[in-house]
């Protein structure tokens, strides 16, 4: 049985760029690479335009609103893509005001076309960032991270110092990016901390230009942010924090994450701690309702496949807070080593390390994974239910921005878990 293969560095680079509203990605690729990414970018950017070849008959876009491509065929692999690149850039030059990122798909990168030269010959060096070698089969978070650094290097931020922070490591590639950003920003504001920018998750190029004025880079997911954090540090001496307990998922890690940021900035998270406490009480009374009848969720098995910055706090919380038992844990490629080691230590301390490296393991009740794989596992009878925590989504339409992070996210997780198990 196989589920969905994890997205790789190409998807990361594309969505890393598309996460900036005034950047358009052009793919030097066959349409097969384009359609999927065009659909995902449209979805993740929450665009209102409808994808339809009759509504959008213009060349290069093939009916979608994002990610025009050079529709390479086998002849282009032999003769090169210079002509098509010239034509597509010429077309986009006057129709798109913002920055363009021109990315070679893996096959196109083997041809060896000098795409920088095409851009220079078109007089578009200031407006177009070339990515000649997208990378092959590395993790998607690395792609997001590298893409952001490329864009920052091109923009050359020059913001004046401000008493605000950047949230880095969020990306439209992640599930619930919008809701997570909203939740975390709100928690920070309640602690007296203002967010200046969220590179890769909705901040435009002007915001990125100002981002160098931040006091601190607060990392949410280091897998998506370490190179970005180093860039800011090396160029602007902006320090970054890697919170000790991972991403803010579950009450404990949320409390810890906010505390770490506040501590660095000399703030006190009173309000947030109060809200967490209140949420914990709400959660407890609902859990008790199920627990009183069935004893659940204690003893229920779960499996998780995620980056370690998410897996570590989630596993810890499900085990310590809900009494659930991990039966399968698979860390995705590119996981942060710090959190991977912490997870391993935690599992060893609790004699659970035999579930590490296997997925989904034996008879999980709930699987935490991407929505498509989760849905498949449920249909295959592998689990009772799934919780969608990563890309690609299950295909369900979502209108209200949700999150599985922070206080709201913790409550949502509990709601989902209880409904699956009851």
């Amino acid at each position, binding site marked *: *049985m*196989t*589920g*969905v*293969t*994890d*997205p*790789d*560095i*190409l*998807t990361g680079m594309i969505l890393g760029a598309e996460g900036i509203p005034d950047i358009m990605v052009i793919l030097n690729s*066959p*349409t*097969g*690479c384009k*359609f*999927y990414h065009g659909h995902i970018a449209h979805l993740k950017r929450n665009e209102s335009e*409808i994808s*339809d*070849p*009759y*509504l959008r*008959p213009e060349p290069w876009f*093939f*009916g979608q609103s994002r990610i025009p491509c050079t*529709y*390479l*065929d*086998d*002849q282009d*692999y032999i003769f*090169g893509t210079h002509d098509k690149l010239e034509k597509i850039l010429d077309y986009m030059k006057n129709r798109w005001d913002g920055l363009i990122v021109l990315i070679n*798909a*893996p*096959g196109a*990168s*083997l*041809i*060896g*076309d*000098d795409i*920088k*030269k095409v851009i220079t010959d078109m007089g578009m060096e200031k407006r177009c960032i070339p990515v*000649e*070698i*997208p*990378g*092959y*089969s*590395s993790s998607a978070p690395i792609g997001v991270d590298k893409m952001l650094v490329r864009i920052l290097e091109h923009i050359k931020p020059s913001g004046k110092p401000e008493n605000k922070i950047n949230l880095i490591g969020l990306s439209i590639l992640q599930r619930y990016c919008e809701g997570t950003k909203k939740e975390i920003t709100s928690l920070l504001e309640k602690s007296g901390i203002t967010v200046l920018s969220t590179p890769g998750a909705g901040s435009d190029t002007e915001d990125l230009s100002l981002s160098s004025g931040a006091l601190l880079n607060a990392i949410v997911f280091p897998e998506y942010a370490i190179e970005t954090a180093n860039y800011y540090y090396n160029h602007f001496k902006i320090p970054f924090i890697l919170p000790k307990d991972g991403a803010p998922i579950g009450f404990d890690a949320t409390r810890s994450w906010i505390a770490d940021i506040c501590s660095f900035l000399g703030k006190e998270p009173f309000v947030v701690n109060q809200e967490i406490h209140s949420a914990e009480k709400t959660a407890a009374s609902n859990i008790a309702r199920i627990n009183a009848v069935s004893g659940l969720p204690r003893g229920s098995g779960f499996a998780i496949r995620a980056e370690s910055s998410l897996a570590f706090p989630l596993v810890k919380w499900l085990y310590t807070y809900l009494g659930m038992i991990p039966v399968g844990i698979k860390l995705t490629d590119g996981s942060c080593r710090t959190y991977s080691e912490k997870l391993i230590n935690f599992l060893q301390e609790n004699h659970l390390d035999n579930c590490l490296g296997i997925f989904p393991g034996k008879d999980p009740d709930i699987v935490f994974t991407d929505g*498509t*794989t989760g*849905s*498949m596992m449920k*249909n*295959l*009878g592998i689990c009772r239910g799934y919780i969608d925590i990563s890309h*690609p989504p*299950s*295909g369900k339409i979502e209108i209200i921005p949700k999150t599985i992070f922070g206080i709201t996210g913790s409550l949502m997780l509990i709601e989902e878990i209880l409904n699956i198990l009851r």
Partner: protein
Amino acid sequence: MNNKDPEGPFTRIAVYGKGGIGKSTISANISATLADEGYSVLHIGCDPKHDSTRALLGELHPHTVTDFLRSSDARTDCSALVRTGYNGIACIEAGGPEPGVGCAGRGILSTFEILGRMGIDSSRYMYTIYDVLGDVVCGGFAVPLRREYADLILIVTSGEYMSLYAANNILRGIQNFDMNINRIGGIIYNSRGGSEEDEQLKKFSDAVGLPILVKIPRSEIFLTAEKHSNTVVAAFPNSLEASLFRELISDLTSTKKPVSRYRARPLDVIKLESLILGRDISASSSFSHQVSVNFKPAMPKTVDGTGCFRVPEKPPLFGCAFAGAITVLSQIQDASIIAHCPSSCAHIVSNLLVSSHNRDHDKSGYHGKQTPFSLIHTGMDEKMMVFGGIDRLKKSIIKSAESENRVIFIISGCAPGITGDDIEGCSSDMSQSLGIPVIPVSVNGIGEGDFSAGTMAGYQASLQLVKKGTGGKRKSVVLVGEKILANNTSANFNELNQYLSALDIPVLCRFLAHTTVNEVESMNKQSLILPASSDESTLKLSEIISEKTGSDIFPYSLPFTFHETVRWVKNLAKIFRVEDKGSALIALKEKKYREEIGLIMQKTVGKRVIISSSGPDISWVLEIVRECGMEIIRAGYLSSPYLMKDKQKISDISIIPDYTLEKLYDDIKTYRPDLVLTTIWLDHKKANVRYGMIPFCPNVGFFGALSSMKHWTSILFGPVTEGWRNYL
């Protein structure tokens, strides 16, 4: 990397020339001479043979950049890539894959990228020499020609025609980069000692407008120095040859009179041949010797009976053959699929497959388990791009063979098609050693074509499981060409299977949908082929299967309307001599059908409708609409911005083949129909009308069309325009 003063002295010199012309020897001697003059020099060999720096190091460079890439340990000390040679020259070799495998051009690209990442660049040295592979066979080998690398290009050639031909080719390559920029310093004449050589070279140099910077005479001294892995400049510093290099360097490094730079002005082949060989080939139709050949290619005839041949224009490919092949082969449950590709391709196709399986499962109302499929991929990384991916592929095959699956299909993406991995050879070897079929599907991404070309390749590959014709005849059917990405595939099959069960006709195999290796193999027994649709590819596939198995093809595709289904059932029953069962089935369904259609007609008689489709056959729509007493004002096929017109079948004389979107909107305005049935989004500002969507994959069977008609009827009673559209 910043460009230095364009007037010189030049700091980055690319040396090009035909393979075997002495380029590496000359470039090593140039580096040695520069070092002797006190300049710091970086010498980069850009040839997979990695022998450019041998004479400077006294041995082959032990650590090429591609070796480093292969070892992939991030903690490896990259200083090992730079070896210090004669007189402090920093030596780097790009290296590359073994001959015949991988992509050396990719290796060169990776080399420059790795050197850049490590901060090893020419800015630390006064002079950088790039010694480049003789034949610039792809973009990778042209990297040193890029403007951010070489400031100056020197071409090494002899006076022999083939060497001049290669030099001319190099000028064409340079011209592709430079157009109107001048970067060529001139020609280094490495003489072979032929009698007319000087004259030939002079003619060439005059014709292309490049000076001959130096003539290196043929000399045994080079061979002697080579034997000792040394340069002539180092081994014989007082020789004439060494002094020639010193003169060359003196000119190249002169600040008082910097060497001029020239533009690339290659000759066309006819002129070159005429100039050097004195042959006028302009009148001949071929460059090869004229040999009469008794061959007449088959050519399509024009109306007047003459033959003609045109290279067909290429429309864009929709999707890729790789995805198409995997999509159909994933339907064989106990087959393993190995995608030989980078992870990005595997992610895209696995998401497509799992999503469509999920949707089909959900929509079918089937509460049993969803059918799994097995797909792994080789995760081609940069190393495999350069060195080839066959080793990893073999490991994946061995791993797959450990499962209980009975056959392994290997499908290739774009990358192995470009790097030239021998999938067929590997599959054959592994099949022999493992004793199970390992079937290659070398679609090479888009090499085979688009998604539907890939599905055909997948079908063809799976037919290899069917042994020809010894199976005998069976009372059974093979269902061919179900639309497996539709979300009603299972529901449609369940419906049909009811009818077939009522007729006591078993389904031998669903080719290819939710099937097994056994079922595919059993197709060697003659059955009746039931085509799922009447499109070209299904009919073609049916013919292929028929030819392979001897089975007949049922003349009717799956029915959508009541009457189509009656015809289908009757004809099927007749073939299998179960007419009484067929009649009983029809009678059972007819009663219910009449009741339901009667109810619908109460609401639809006299209503006026326009029908437009962007692709699927709409004859079933016309039938059901007419049966419900509606008046068809217009019916037509919309021309798609992307699809070719001849894909649409005109099965009803009243259907207009060239129905444009503008005409549709005009007709809506003019005729004000009660309902529009279409496959596309309508702009409510241009067409304020109730409209319903025609499904691309309709439901089959007695009640198939009726189910759509029920929905369309209910639209007639809703608002003309829903409120939410006003906010678009």
